[in-house]
Structure formats: C-alpha cells, structure tokens
C-alpha cells in the first residue's frame, strides 16, 4: 500500500475539452491538481518533411493550408511570405490588402467558433448554439468571397489567386454591418452573464511574468497583459498602414487578471477590431494586379533558380505563427522548412494555469488557450495507491463541469 496521497490522471490523448488529440498527465491530490505534464506525439504528420522531400513549392502552399483546418489562411500566408523573401519576389499592393481581409475574416470565424466551444465546456449550450448561429454569416461570406467555407485556397507565391470584386466587397460589407449590429448582444452574454463569470473569473490564471518567460503568444499572452501582436509589431500585409493596436483586457475594464475571463474579453474585442480592420482595408484598397507572376511554370522555374532564406510571420487567431524556408539553387523542394504554429508556444503555459486548480476546471482552462491540435472521448483515471484504473468518459467530465456550474449558482 502506497502512502502517497496523490493520483495520476492522464487526460487524453483523446481529450476532454479539445477537438484534437493531446495528452495531459495530471497528478492530483483529491480535487486539486499538483502536477502537470503534456505529451503531443499523437498527430505529427510530417508535413515539413513532405515539403522538403516530395513537393514543389506550389504544392506546398496547399499542403500548408492543411496544417490546420481553422487557420487555413495564416499557415499558407506565412509560407508564401517566407518563399517570397527567399526568392526576392515583390507582392502587388492590392494582394497585400486582399490577404489582410481574408486573414481577418478567418479571425472572426475562429474567435466565434472558440466562444461557442468555451460556452459548451461550461455547460451553457444555449450560448454555444447562439454563437455558432451568428458564425454562419461569416462562413457564408467566406464561401462567397473565396469559393469555399473551409480551405480557402487563396494564397499564391507572389500574391493571391482571386480578386475581391465590387460584388464580393459588398457581400463583406453586409457581413461586417451584421456583426457590428450584433456585437453588443454577444458581449452582453459573455461578459455580463453571471454563470459564465463564475466559472471563468480567477480560473486558470497566467501571470504576466509566466507569459513572458514561457513565450506565450496571441490572445493568451495579451490577456495576461503582454501587448504582443504581430499585426501591430511587425509590418506585413496592409496592417502596417491600418490603425492597429494590440488588445489587452484593461482596455475594457481597467484591470488585468490573466484568467479565462480575460481571454474571453480579448477575443471578443478582437472580433470587433477585425470588423473595423476589414472595413478600413476595403475602403483603402488600391487597384492593380493581384499576383506578381501569373504563369505557374515560369514561377516554378524562377523558384528553382532561387537561392536564399526567408521568415514569414503572421498573427494567426491563436497568436504568432512563424515559418522559416530555405531554397537551394537547382532543387524544387525546400531545402529547409520549419513551421511553428502558435499552440506550440501556448502549451507550456497550461502548466501554471492548471496547477492548483480543480479537475472540473480542466476543460475550460485548456479550451481557454484555444488549442489547435481535435475530439475528446475518454480519460483514464489511474488510482495509484489502490492500483486500479477506471475510465472517465468525456460525458462524465462534461457532467462534472456542469455540476460545478449548478453548484456555484446555488451557493451564490
């Protein structure tokens, strides 16, 4: 018989809160979490290897689009920027604006998707359905503008593949007006509802110092008071000349706690910011070409002759995304390709966020970083001292989370 009062709970690889596989190994003492370890070996698909050994650079654009279903603009965006820099290709001004608009449309859909998931995690399914119903407008707009709801296939080395015509611009304007009209409603639900506040205030706190030390990025870092946003910090696309400032929670209520609630504030305000950026970009969009080289055979030949390296950085909905590409003269595939998605940096901050918390808070805390990895099914609880194992299903964990919400509401 072991006297150690702690238990080990592996959460995942199919995870309670996330829609993608990752494993959290939690050591718990009763309900309190006292140790956290993360394992990510479930879905490494070797995308970089394919780009370095099998694909030509144009094929790699479509491959990079499939790094992530949600961020299917920012990965190819990063990659084409890195290739353009390595090969010395100049992008037409209009293409910079179109890229910016498409990237912002993606941010709106991604943040609303996240808000819905977060509501579901705390057992508030009415809000989940309401948010996702609102999200349909942006999905329809994306389909109208790019031809597809999900993989938009709009990026090309040296520009974009499709123009934003007057009709498409009008459709986007209709969608931005719709969100400005409905923004207050979503903000009211998420920021003033009592049960959401109870489950998210002072939960999963990440201090500013931890955010900086662990190199957190995106809304997670900003919610902890680090004003870091690639759109504001480094010039790319049309952002350098549009009005852009990193959003921190103190802009809304004058204080920074760094908890789940602050992450909600940051993402909601960013939806509004994206709407404003899209409107400004549409109003200031220059006319002209949309791609530097239309002939793909010529483009490939040019890339084959190129020799150099480049870095592409984009603020994805989840934070800084960076690609490094090196081209070697005489060879089609990349000599070197490194992709670093924002969640890569936002995994380590889970440890201070979860330490000291409760098991029922795991789904919402993990979901609050908006990890981009896909659907939880069950969790195995290992009771070390009694040497037995039992499975904790997603439904049970979800139920625990709902019970906690109800308990808090009764006590209030």
């Amino acid at each position, binding site marked *: 018989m072991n006297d150690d009062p702690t238990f080990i709970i592996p959460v995942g690889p199919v995870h309670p809160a996330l829609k993608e596989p990752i494993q959290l190994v939690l050591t718990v003492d009763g309900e309190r979490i006292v140790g956290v370890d993360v394992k990510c*070996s479930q879905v*490494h698909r070797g995308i970089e290897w394919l780009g370095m050994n099998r694909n030509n650079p144009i094929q790699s654009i479509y491959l990079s689009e499939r790094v992530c279903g949600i961020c299917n603009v920012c990965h190819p965006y990063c990659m084409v920027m890195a290739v353009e*820099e390595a090969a010395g290709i100049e992008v037409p001004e209009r293409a910079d604006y179109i890229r910016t608009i498409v990237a912002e449309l993606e941010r709106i859909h991604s943040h609303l998707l996240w808000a819905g998931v977060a509501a579901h995690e705390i057992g508030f399914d009415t809000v989940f359905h309401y948010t996702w119903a609102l999200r349909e407008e942006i999905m329809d707009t994306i389909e109208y503008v790019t031809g597809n709801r999900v993989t938009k296939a709009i990026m090309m080395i040296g520009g974009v593949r499709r123009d934003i015509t007057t009709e498409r611009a009008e459709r986007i304007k209709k969608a931005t007006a719709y969100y400005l009209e409905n923004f207050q409603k979503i903000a009211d639900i998420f920021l003033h509802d009592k049960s959401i506040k109870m489950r998210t205030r002072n939960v999963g706190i990440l201090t500013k110092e931890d955010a900086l030390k662990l*190199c*957190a990025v995106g809304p997670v870092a900003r919610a902890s008071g680090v*004003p870091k946003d690639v759109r504001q*910090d*480094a010039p790319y696309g*049309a952002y350098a000349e549009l009005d852009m400032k990193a959003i921190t929670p103190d802009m809304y209520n004058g204080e920074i706690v760094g908890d789940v609630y602050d992450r909600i504030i940051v993402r909601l305000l960013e939806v509004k910011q994206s709407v404003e950026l899209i409107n400004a970009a549409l109003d200031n969009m220059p006319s002209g070409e949309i791609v530097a080289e239309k002939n793909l055979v010529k483009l490939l030949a040019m890339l084959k002759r190129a020799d150099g390296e480049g870095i592409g950085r984009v603020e994805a909905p989840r934070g800084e995304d960076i690609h490094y590409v090196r081209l070697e003269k005489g060879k089609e595939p990349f000599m070197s390709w490194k992709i670093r998605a924002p969640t890569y940096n936002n995994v380590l901050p889970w440890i201070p966020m979860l330490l000291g918390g409760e098991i029922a808070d795991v789904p919402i805390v993990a979901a609050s970083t908006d990890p981009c990895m896909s659907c939880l099914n069950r969790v195995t609880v290992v009771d070390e001292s009694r040497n037995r194992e039992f499975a904790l299903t997603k439904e049970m964990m979800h139920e625990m989370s709902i019970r906690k919400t109800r308990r808090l509401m009764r006590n209030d």
Partner: protein
Amino acid sequence: MKVEDIVNGLKSRFECDVKVQSRACGTKKIEKRDIYARLRREDFRKAVEYLFEIQEYLHFSVISATDLGNDMELLYHFTVDYGKRNEEKVVTLCVSLPKDDLKIESITDLIPGALISEREIHEMVGVEFIGLKDTRHFFLPEDWPEGKYPWRRDETFPEDMLNKLYETWKGGDENE
C-alpha cells in the same frame, strides 16, 4: 533599438557574419527587417545573453534546423522590441554543428519557453543540448528507434519506415 545598433553590437562582440534582409509591404512600402547572425558555437550563449540586454524578456519563437551535409545548422529565431508599432525585429542566431559532434548548450535556464523546441530538435535531428533536463520524446512516439532522425538527409534517416510506419509499430496485431 535600431537594426544597425543590433548589427554593430553583434559584430563588435563576436566573430560573426551578419546579414539584414528586408521586405516592403502595402502601399506605403513600410519595411520589415530581419537580422541573421552566423556565429561560432562558443559565442552562441553569450550572444543570447547580449540579446537579453536589448530586451528584458527576450521572445523566443522556435529553432529551425537545416542539413548542410557534413554539418547541421541550427537557427534560433528570437524577436526583440515587441509592443512598439512596426518596430519588432526577428533576430536569428545561426550555429553550425559538425555531425560527429552535435552538442550545444541549452538555453532553457534563460528561457523556459524553449523547452519544447529543444526537445523537438533533440528527437528530430539528434542534437544533444547540454543542461537540458527533460530529454523525453515530445512529438515522436515513446518507442521510436534510437539513432533514427527524421529531419536529417543522411544514413540516420529512417528510410525503411517510409510509407509503412505501421509495420514498424511494436505490439501491433500479429494476425493483421
């Protein structure tokens, strides 16, 4: 801090080859400028410490690796001056390591956020990070064969596992 100051700072302190790459964007052609410094291995740690003089909490993005044949080149991408409009720069410190001596000091004591990246390079390329406490696999499975490195272009690349990874799994179903 200006790009030129960082370049001069690096050049005056270390024996290194520094390159600045720029790219303009939008209608106003505002430039983004990235710094690449190719250093000797023994100066690397001091160069990171120098970057800390520019930025109290240096932001670390990731480590990239390139197989150069006899050497592996590691590229550490850092950024400085975040939070200032259009002022942030990527500073990439590049170090070439001979393949028969793939060792470099860990920076996880200076930047705890570099842990995942060092573990990734350790398993994918086979670099030993001196001082790295946690050397378990992060992206590769726990039973990955020793001495096989998927990101290298030499005999250590697991050619026999290509396109038939499932056959190499231990404990698979024998009847399949």
